[in-house]
């Protein structure tokens, strides 16, 4: 039987059984494409419905036709067919209004056809503009009209330009009065391109009027809209339209200045943003007549007292404007006058300032202007630096003087960045003198500011001033007790030393800070050690200083431990000592050997801390060496270390500090031996430090071994050894679980799948009563991060997102344990979760909120401090970011938080629970909160009298916030 669409009955079917026939379009299209049915026959069969006297039926007919067109392959119809259908559709535009929507939709599909020729639109557009009043249509149909326009432009913009102002007029009248936010968003995006490409001719003003009526956007999205368009989206889209072409200049300026004077904050912000944007297209001449008005508005906004966002945008606008105007600096007087106005105004502000806030306000304006262009920078630096120097000498208040030093530094840096130092040389030359005056005062603030500014203006420092500065600096290094001042002083000497090496060598290294002269005074000696080690990083000083220090260590002087400490602290600063520098020191002076010798002597007698500095120094030095040198070091020192270690576990630290910082791939035949020793120490030693170092070294070796044979060998050895361990020994089991933690961590970080095996073992023990605490400790270890172990500095492999992976894996595995939990081990289970959550990325937690939230809420019942701190943190995040996941449990959460606000063991927990209560009041809907308000206010009262002040202050914040819940004057949306 032939299908109905081969017969004229199709028309009746469309009218009577439209629900059925509309589902058949795919079959019809396949018939057409395969050539069994001609499209003209189909249309003929539809004749009855297309020419029906009832508009509803014609609408159905057109809808059917449109559906066919939309689903048809784009390249099927030939040019003649498209033209014919286009004609037909154009004719249909004149039909009853209810027929129009499918016609528009159909024409949209037609434009997409490959064979659609742009000439067809010369017939279509006039009819569209004449017959259809765009704003009288529904939202979707208006959208279709706009899309048609855009598609036509995309198809052949040249042709649209050729149609010219008729088309532009049509577009203007179509969009005039549009109110739907989504359509507007589409239109703004379309218009910003359209205006730039299509000449508007005499319609410039009309176009501007139609767009500018939306400025500034005043729009509040509906609460129920799931994907609401925000006000900012609209404002950002509108902005480029308003300044799309230079012809808009005058009208735009008038609009801008009017809105800048508005009382509405958003109007101001939008206008300022528009000003910034407009500087990209408008000519400088556009602004010239308006400069005075613009400056007075900008100045007013920049001096706003409380609104930081507004101030920021105003500064951006000023920068854009100055930058724009600076392009005419050589030809036009306007720029110069404009600058003068800014200068005078800022100078007045600074001169009148009685507080730092006021001073900074003027300073910021100057800096913004100076940063905006080369010309303004030169003018302002030339005018302001002498003025501020004079201001400094006026001796206003100390705070203002310090601020003025900072401003000089800022201006100088700005000129330097722009390469204008030569132009302002005369003005800045006496700045170092001012710095000297500042550092000669006794107050710490002045000295700090003086040194900081001096370091910024170091290029214009003359040699004659070095001596007085060094006097002050040396005095500071000897006597200053304040750490800030001390480190700044050291930094400044470093700067001097780079600039005048010989001078400092004579003055400092060989003169005042010579080590030999100093040993008498212990305090002085220790203070200067840091300075000297710091200076040793400069090539000219390395030899002299390091040799002196080595001598002290070799002689086993009483001060050796301080020397080691200073070296360890300074040499680990990569910014001071580069890896190359450390390598050079090691190869020139042989640092490791004497330090090791010193360690062997001291290890049993000295305090653990001072020995630890020695190990850190060696580890850092070994870590800085290239792989082949590391091999040499290992070959040289391993035998002795192993021998000593066999005697006493204490010496294992030596092995650890030699082997931990190796590069991946450094390998030799002793590695298996080392692994065996490490295992023995990790599981058998009675010395806790040695045990953890043993574990760490095993982890390092596993992490860094090259994939393939090397890794397999170590891994198998480890597995065999571990499987031989006796599981009945309770002490051993605890240590084993911790070692599993280390192994898991090492494998996880190198991105190996094998970590799963060990993690399963750990998680398995959570459900036991005896070892559940150890399992939680192991999990803590896996998630923790330390500079000392498995860090990039030790060349470890650290795969991306390993914490996220751990979170996901743990989350999956822990489900299995959940059923077998008893009251005894539930706490450990929750604690493990807490450790994982603590370090997992925030975004992951947010995505998993539905799963994590109940665990967090459960944890609040227990009294483990670590767990509570983490749980409260996570809960706080949820309250802020995704309240919907916790809002249903408010009845449970609030009493628990109140309970924790009285948690005696830790003020941290009290503070965090109170913070959480504050956030709840701040983020939840008032309707949820009101039933609890009175209870919470009463329950919070005792916290106001907490014995710790920090707790009290958070309690006050939380309670004051709860007072505002639902009260008049509360600043909240719902």
């Amino acid at each position, binding site marked *: 039987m032939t299908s109905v669409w081969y017969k004229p009955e199709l028309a009746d079917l469309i009218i009577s059984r439209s629900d059925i026939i509309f589902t058949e379009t795919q079959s019809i299209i396949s018939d057409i494409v395969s050539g069994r049915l001609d499209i003209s026959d189909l249309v003929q069969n539809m004749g009855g419905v297309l020419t029906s006297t009832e508009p509803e039926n014609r609408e159905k007919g057109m809808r059917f036709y449109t559906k066919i067109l939309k689903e048809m392959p784009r390249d099927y119809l030939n040019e003649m067919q498209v033209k014919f259908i286009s004609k037909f559709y154009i004719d249909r535009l004149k039909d009853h209004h209810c027929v129009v929507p499918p016609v528009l939709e159909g024409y949209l599909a037609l434009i997409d056809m490959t064979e659609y020729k742009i000439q067809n639109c010369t017939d279509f557009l006039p009819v569209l503009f004449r017959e259809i009043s765009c704003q009288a249509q529904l939202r979707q149909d208006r959208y279709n009209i706009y899309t048609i326009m855009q598609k036509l432009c995309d198809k052949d913009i040249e042709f649209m330009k050729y149609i010219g102002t008729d088309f532009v007029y049509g577009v203007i009248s179509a969009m005039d009065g549009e109110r739907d936010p989504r359509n507007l968003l589409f239109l703004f995006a379309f218009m910003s391109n359209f205006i730039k490409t299509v000449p508007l001719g005499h319609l410039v003003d009309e176009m501007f009027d139609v767009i500018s009526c939306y400025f500034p956007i005043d729009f509040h999205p509906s609460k129920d809209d799931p994907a609401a368009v925000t006000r900012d989206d609209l404002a950002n889209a509108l902005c480029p339209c308003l300044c799309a072409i230079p012809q808009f200049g005058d009208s735009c300026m008038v609009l801008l200045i009017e809105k800048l004077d508005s009382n509405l904050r958003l109007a101001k912000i939008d206008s300022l943003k528009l000003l910034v944007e407009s500087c990209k297209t408008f000519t400088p001449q556009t602004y010239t007549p308006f400069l005075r008005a613009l400056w007075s508005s900008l100045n007013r906004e920049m001096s706003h*007292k*409380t609104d930081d966002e507004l101030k920021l945008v105003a500064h951006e606008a000023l920068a854009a404007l100055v930058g724009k105007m600076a392009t005419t600096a050589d030809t036009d007087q306007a720029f110069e006058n404009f600058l003068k106005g800014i200068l005078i105004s800022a100078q007045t502000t600074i001169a009148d300032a*009685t*507080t*730092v*806030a*006021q001073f900074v306000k003027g300073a910021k304006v100057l800096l913004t202007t100076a940063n905006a262009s080369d010309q303004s920078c030169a003018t302002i630096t030339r005018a302001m630096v002498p003025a501020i120097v004079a201001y400094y000498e006026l001796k206003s208040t100390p*705070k203002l003087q310090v601020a003025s030093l900072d401003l000089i530094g800022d201006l100088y840096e700005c000129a330097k960045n722009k390469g204008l130092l030569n132009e302002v040389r005369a003005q800045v030359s006496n700045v170092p003198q001012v710095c000297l005056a500042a550092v000669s005062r006794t107050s710490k603030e002045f000295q700090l500011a003086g040194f900081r500014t001096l370091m910024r203006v170091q290029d214009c420092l003359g040699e004659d001033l070095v001596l007085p500065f060094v006097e002050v600096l040396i005095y500071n290094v000897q006597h200053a007790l304040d750490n800030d001042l001390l480190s700044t002083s050291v930094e400044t000497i470093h700067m001097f030393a780079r600039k005048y090496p010989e001078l400092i060598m004579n003055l400092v290294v060989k003169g005042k800070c010579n080590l030999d002269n100093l040993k008498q005074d212990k305090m002085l000696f220790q203070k200067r050690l840091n300075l000297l080690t710091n200076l040793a990083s400069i090539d000219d000083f390395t030899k002299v200083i390091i040799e002196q220090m080595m001598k002290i260590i070799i002689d086993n002087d009483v001060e050796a431990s301080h020397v080691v400490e200073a070296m360890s602290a300074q040499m680990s600063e990569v910014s001071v000592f580069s890896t190359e520098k450390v390598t050079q020191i090691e190869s020139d002076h042989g640092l490791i050997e004497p330090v090791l010798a010193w360690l062997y002597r001291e290890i049993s007698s000295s305090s653990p801390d001072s020995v630890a500095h020695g190990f850190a120094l060696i580890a850092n030095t070994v870590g800085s060496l290239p792989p082949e040198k590391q091999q040499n070091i290992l070959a040289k020192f391993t035998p002795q270390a192993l021998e000593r270690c066999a005697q006493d576990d204490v010496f294992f630290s030596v092995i650890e500090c030699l082997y931990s910082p190796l590069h991946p791939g450094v390998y030799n035949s002793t590695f298996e031996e080392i692994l065996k020793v490490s295992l023995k120490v990790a599981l058998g030693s009675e010395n806790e430090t040695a045990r953890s170092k043993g574990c760490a070294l095993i982890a390092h070796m596993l992490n860094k071994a090259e994939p393939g044979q090397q890794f397999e060998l170590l891994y198998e050895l480890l597995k065999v050894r571990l499987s031989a361990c006796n599981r009945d020994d309770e002490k051993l089991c605890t240590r084993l679980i911790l070692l599993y933690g280390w192994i898991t961590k090492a494998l996880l970080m190198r991105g190996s799948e094998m970590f799963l095996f060990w993690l399963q073992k750990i998680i398995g023990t959570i459900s036991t009563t005896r070892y559940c605490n150890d399992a939680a400790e192991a999990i803590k270890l896996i998630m923790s991060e330390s500079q000392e172990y498995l860090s990039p500095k030790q060349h470890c492999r650290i795969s991306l997102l390993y914490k996220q992976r751990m979170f996901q894996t743990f989350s999956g595995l822990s489900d299995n344990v959940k059923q077998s939990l008893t009251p005894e081990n539930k706490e450990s289970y929750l604690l493990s979760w807490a450790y994982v959550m603590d370090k997992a990325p925030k975004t992951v937690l947010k995505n998993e909120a539905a799963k994590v939230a109940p665990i967090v809420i459960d944890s609040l019942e227990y009294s483990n401090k670590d767990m509570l701190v983490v749980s409260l943190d996570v809960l706080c995040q949820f309250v802020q970011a995704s309240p919907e996941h916790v809002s249903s449990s408010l009845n449970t959460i609030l009493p628990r938080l109140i309970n924790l606000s009285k948690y005696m*063991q*830790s*003020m941290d927990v009290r503070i965090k629970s109170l913070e959480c209560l504050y956030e709840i009041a701040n983020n939840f809907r008032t309707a949820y909160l009101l039933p609890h308000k009175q209870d919470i206010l009463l329950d919070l*009262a*005792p916290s*106001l*009298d907490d*014995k*710790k*002040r*920090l707790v*009290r*202050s958070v309690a*006050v914040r939380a*309670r*004051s916030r709860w*007072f*505002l819940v639902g*009260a*008049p*004057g*509360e*600043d909240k949306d719902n």
Partner: protein
Amino acid sequence: MTKSVADNVNPNIYDKESEREKTAADFDEDVEDLFDEREIFDLIRNINDPEHPLTLEELRVVEESNIRVDNKDNTVVVNFTPTIPHCSMATLIGLSIRVQLLRALPSRFKVTVEVSEGSHVSEHAVNKQLADKERIAAALENKNLVQIINQCIAAA
């Protein structure tokens, strides 16, 4: 309620003090921190002036030296200084301070809020109003007044 012109259009502005430094004792669980003048000052320094977008501290309406705390007798006395002697907002400012302390201090303290001596023309009237519990309770029944006070102390 909003007045078009403020009483004191161009008040002097002063620097804010830095935040209280946190000492090691603050983090020590075993040390009990007593209430001191600075703590009370911190509670009220950030109250907004009803007329300006400035805090009472920036206008030097409240100063640490004008606060007295006695932990043993449980009393807190706050004296505040209106920016000009005929300031019509003096009562409102005093009320704001009072309400803030009412909400933020434990109930064991007896709080007295007064205008500094000689700084306001109707000093006694203001002090009397601020000392009258019933009048304060009545004032807090007034929705408009509560709204203004809440806005003033929201940032504190």
